[in-house]
């Protein structure tokens, strides 16, 4: 594909990082929430454009930043959901100001932090240096901690504290793993920056000391796994989702978990490249399955609507980790597809949940009933979202879950039994809950919805579209990436 000259000259990687970074300062200084929320949308949109341009023009690999076929998928997804969430946030957050939950100065802080978080996540995805990757994930964690605590209620502070402490421990373990990878690579590659550069590491991984890599991977999996929300180190996730502003719940589930998973995948590729090292798959399969089964049972006892969907995120991250742990072209393909579909669907659900909480004035499931009668558009939107996330055809998640299950049955039938069990249990819980929320006699507030429906339906339309027809270009691309993942 040919592009106009100025576009090929244009450095997309720089733009993806510099636009959010510049926006942090601008948004922190500008008063007036209407302008800043629009600027937030604009910055997110420009970042998305820069990310999309990566599909056509591939910049050269540098010592710190690089773009390859794997991370470009994550970057485009990240900036896309970042953009749609910013449009949702622009219409949502004004209402929070009206009800007095946020003050204008906190709102300014919120917008600056939103862009700082996008910067951290984009940097993590573009990093070619495992040290830089770690720093970027730490930055994204710190910014989200601030946002989770922004309402300053008892619950929000507790959630932010828990998230901060568990997140820091996770990040500390990941750093220890990173140091161990350096200790393994240093005798082979030599001292200095090269021994932490991912593209050089992967090329020479076969010569590394396998025992050291094994220990490193365990630390990295536990460390970054904390951020993915895998059981048994998931405890921060439900609180952080329930107590932060809803747009933040959407990006936490839709994006931050993916970024942490991306880090795990990069190190999994290193492990696979070294034949003498421990196979990373079984570890990931175990953590994925235990998250899936644990979360699917926990879904039944939830009383708070945001917590319900937070546990559903643990469940789906479990499925995705399981699929990548199984490995092989088919399971990796299913994992990538599932990750994309989950990001889109879960953020759409959180958009709906944000509207519900504002309209009904509560997050308690018991106080929300008959939504399809009191707010038909919103109610049916939520029903479609939940039907999608529960894995019913014809939506996208059905297809990816179907691929995960069939590929597992073909290779390891015994593992497929707990997988299917977890999926069915979660399916039952979600449908049971959504019938209570959506149907029956209306109960609770009847305030009209203020925020826009467009982001929610745009995501659901994409998920439905992918379920009905996956463009061959996308299929080819994902198949190619699945091969890379090994």
């Amino acid at each position, binding site marked *: 594909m040919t592009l106009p000259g100025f576009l090929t000259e244009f450095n997309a990687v720089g733009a993806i990082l510099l636009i959010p970074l510049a926006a942090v300062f601008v948004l922190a200084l500008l008063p007036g929430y209407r302008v800043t929320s629009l600027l937030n949308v604009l910055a997110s949109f420009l970042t998305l454009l820069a990310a999309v341009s990566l599909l056509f023009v591939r910049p050269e690999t540098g010592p710190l930043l690089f773009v390859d076929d794997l991370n470009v998928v994550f970057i485009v997804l990240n900036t896309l959901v970042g953009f749609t969430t910013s449009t949702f946030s622009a219409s949502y957050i004004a209402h929070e100001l009206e009800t007095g939950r946020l003050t204008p100065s906190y709102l300014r802080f919120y917008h600056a932090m939103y862009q700082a978080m996008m910067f951290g996540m984009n940097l993590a995805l573009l990093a070619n*240096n495992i*040290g*830089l990757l*770690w*720093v970027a994930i*730490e930055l994204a964690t*710190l910014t989200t*901690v*601030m946002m989770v*605590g922004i309402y*300053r209620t*008892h*619950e929000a*502070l*507790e959630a*932010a*504290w828990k998230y*901060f*402490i568990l997140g*820091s*421990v996770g990040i*500390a*373990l990941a*750093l*220890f793993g*990173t*140091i*161990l990878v*350096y*200790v*393994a690579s*240093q*005798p082979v590659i*030599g*001292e*200095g*920056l090269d*021994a*932490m550069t991912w593209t050089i590491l992967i090329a020479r991984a076969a010569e590394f*000391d396998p*025992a*050291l890599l*094994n*220990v490193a991977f365990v630390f990295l999996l536990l460390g970054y796994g904390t951020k993915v929300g895998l059981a048994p180190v998931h405890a921060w996730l439900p*609180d952080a989702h*329930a*107590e932060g502003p809803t747009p933040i719940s959407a990006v936490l589930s839709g994006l931050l978990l993916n970024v942490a998973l991306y880090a795990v995948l990069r190190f999994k590729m290193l492990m696979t490249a070294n034949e003498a090292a421990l196979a990373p798959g079984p570890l990931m399969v175990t953590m994925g399955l235990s998250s899936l089964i644990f979360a699917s049972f926990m879904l039944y006892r*939830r*009383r*708070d609507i945001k*917590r319900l969907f937070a546990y559903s995120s643990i469940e789906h991250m479990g499925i995705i980790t399981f699929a990548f742990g199984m490995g092989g072209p088919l399971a990796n393909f299913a994992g990538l597809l599932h990750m994309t579909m989950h990001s889109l669907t879960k953020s759409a659900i959180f958009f709906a949940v944000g509207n519900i909480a504002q309209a009904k004035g509560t997050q308690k499931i018991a106080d929300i009933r008959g939504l399809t009668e009191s707010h038909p558009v919103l109610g049916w939107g939520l029903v479609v979202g939940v039907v999608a996330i529960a894995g019913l055809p014809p939506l996208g998640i059905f297809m990816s879950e179907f691929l995960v299950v069939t590929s597992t049955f073909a290779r390891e039938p015994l593992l497929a039994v707990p997988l299917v069990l977890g999926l069915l249990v979660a399916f039952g819980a979600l449908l049971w809950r959504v019938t209570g929320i959506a149907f029956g006699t209306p109960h609770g507030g009847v305030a009209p919805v203020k925020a826009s429906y467009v982001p929610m339906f745009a995501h659901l339309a994409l998920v439905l579209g992918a379920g009905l027809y996956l463009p061959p270009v996308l299929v080819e691309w994902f198949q190619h990436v699945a091969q890379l993942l090994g």
Partner: protein
Amino acid sequence: MIHPLVYDVAHLLAGGMVLVSFMLLYQDRMHGLLNVFALHALVLALSVSWEALIQHAPHLFITAAIALVVKAIVIPLALHRIVRRLNIHRSVETVVGIGPTMLAGMGLVALSTALMLRVTPSADALARQDLAFALSVVLLGLLMMVSRRNAVSQVVGLMSIENGLILAAAGAKGMPLVVEISVAFSVLVAFIVIGIFLFRIRERFDTVDVQALDRFRGENQ
């Protein structure tokens, strides 16, 4: 051939950090805890300086200076102030008794030594022993975090984990500077965050006991 004394001093300092980590475990007064943490950071600064000297890596002196100034002086002083202002200096509430905690700590040190020495035969002799000590410090810090209820002592546990990580990073020969500075930097940022949190927590709860926070969980009704 490197003089054996070089190794001995490196071991003494790294082993000293493990020892101070044990001392952190049995402190029952808040001010005592903070003083021991300052000692922890001081030993770290000495240890990193020694590494800088024997590895001929001058940039490690910067890391040592950051450890000395920020972690051994500024942060302990600030935490002392917080403790006084919040009037929580009386005692550190523990979840488990001191005895079992110390025993568990010894088990963790044995575990990390056994693990690290086994998996690193090919690495540099100095690096592998530093890694073993560093992992011990990290695990002891984790133990401290799970065995304390008070927010300030959890923060001290977290910072002792970070000290262990810096020890490991300094021991890994020629590890790029980016990481060390970022570690120190992130601790600083983390500290600011924590500071804000402590004050917010105080505003809302009149206590920094994390258990008080648990009562406000969204689903306990």
